[in-house]
């Protein structure tokens, strides 16, 4: 079984080809493609979410890269939600139409299931069951995973997602978007212990998160130390970035450990953009090593939105017999725990 995967749920246009036997054959994000080849020299600056103009050249490139012809493709898998309706509709209608034209099935994929299964694309994938921490700009969730489609929500953010907190703290320190990598770099020069930021909700039982208060705390700390230009001095900015990152990472680690203890599981996977944060990875490895648990994650390119995870998740559901009807169905909201088990 060889499938074409299409991801257009938000900003990124991602396409990949996954083969059930040979693994991932090719994958690309729009931002990485060689535009000169596809557009014949003139490279238009296309806006975020302009998936319509990006998708076909990307599919052509990925097909060519792995030498696949349309006859080699057994199904088209596309992100059917959750996400922006307008963005989802582009990938879904193109995917559904292409499947019809090529006479193959279409499979609608849950975006977060894609993220959750992304570590399966790596050389030594984790085995079920495990706890998953989905942590990105839009999500912070802890999920108990017994198998594909067998998800139990353990906790989630009540307000801002962890990745969003990074972005907003970055903005307060006059760093660029997306904020995660910039905060992480600045934090390396920070003095440990100069500031201690609160760990939101760790003193309360349960596995929910809240990062909005940490945002306000950061804002107040920046304001307290601001100089004439509105920003603290360089070292203070680094110290704030350090304290902020430690607070987010510390909070996530405490909740992950609690989730493992609560479920009795020994494996944690982390997925989503924030799972690329090295400080989070080392902290989790240290904290979970103490209780004999192991951490798995995807390579950085598969932590953020991508087509490979959609191709992989879609291929699993295809092999289990899942098929879309001829209608194009997308969902802005789609609870992860409402998916059918395989």
């Amino acid at each position, binding site marked *: 079984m060889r499938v074409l995967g299409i991801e257009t749920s938000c900003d990124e246009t991602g396409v990949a080809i996954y083969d059930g036997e040979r693994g991932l054959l090719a994958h690309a994000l729009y931002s990485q493609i060689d535009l000169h080849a596809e557009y014949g020299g003139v490279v238009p600056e296309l806006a*975020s979410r302009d998936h319509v103009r990006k998708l076909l050249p990307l599919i052509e490139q990925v097909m060519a890269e792995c030498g696949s012809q349309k006859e080699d493709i057994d199904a088209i898998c596309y992100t059917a939600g959750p996400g*922006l309706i307008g*963005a989802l509709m582009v990938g879904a209608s193109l995917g559904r139409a292409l499947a019809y034209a090529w006479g193959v099935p279409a499979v609608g994929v849950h975006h977060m299931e894609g993220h959750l299964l992304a570590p399966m694309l790596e050389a030594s994938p984790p085995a079920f069951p495990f706890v998953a921490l989905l942590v990105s700009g839009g999500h912070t969730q802890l999920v108990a995973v017994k198998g594909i489609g067998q998800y139990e929500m353990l906790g989630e953010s009540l307000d801002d997602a962890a990745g969003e907190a990074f972005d907003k703290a970055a903005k307060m320190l006059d760093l660029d978007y997306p904020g995660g990598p910039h905060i992480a770099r600045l934090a390396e020069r920070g003095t440990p212990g100069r500031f201690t930021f609160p760990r939101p909700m760790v003193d309360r039982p349960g596995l929910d998160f809240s990062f909005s208060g940490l945002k306000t705390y950061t804002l107040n700390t920046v304001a307290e130390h601001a100089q004439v230009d509105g920003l603290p001095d360089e070292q203070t900015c680094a110290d704030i970035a350090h304290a902020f990152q430690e607070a987010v990472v510390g909070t996530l680690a405490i909740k992950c450990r609690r989730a493992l203890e609560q479920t009795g599981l020994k494996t944690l996977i982390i997925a989503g953009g924030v799972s690329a944060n090295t400080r989070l990875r080392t902290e989790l490895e240290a904290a979970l090593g103490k209780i004999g648990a192991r951490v798995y994650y995807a390579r950085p390119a598969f932590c953020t939105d991508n087509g490979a995870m959609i191709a992989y998740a879609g291929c699993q559901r295809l092999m289990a017999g899942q098929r879309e009807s001829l209608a194009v169905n997308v969902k802005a909201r789609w609870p992860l725990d409402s998916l059918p088990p395989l």
Partner: protein
Amino acid sequence: MLENEAATLALGRALGQRLKALPEQVTVFLEGDLGAGKTTTTRGLLQAFGHQGAVKSPTYTLVEAYEWPERAVYHFDLYRLGDPEELEYMGIRDYFADDSVCILEWPERGQGYLPTPDISLQLRVAGKGREARLSAATKKGQEILAQVLESY
């Protein structure tokens, strides 16, 4: 003046109650810096519509929809827009149809692609509290505001 978070929520609720009672399309702009209380105000507004759960910030998703059989509230955050034209690619026009309530944070980033707001709420950090300024740009907005100020 809004002394604390509870006061910001109460203002949101007062506005929400008026909007719920008015079965028409209404657009509200929420302006103010990071941490000024825009999402908190929206949480109060959604509570007036009967929403019980968490109110996630739509910064990453751009829009969060809250739908009931008789009414829909769309909570936008245009903070991440690089160009107002990007609104076309997310199908912005569909959201302003029928009798929806559209709440927009960072509306200045969507200039040229958004309708005139009925109500604008400007929030500013002032000491430990927040300063709120309400204004109306349409007749519908003026009527709503008069009622909100009466009940708040």
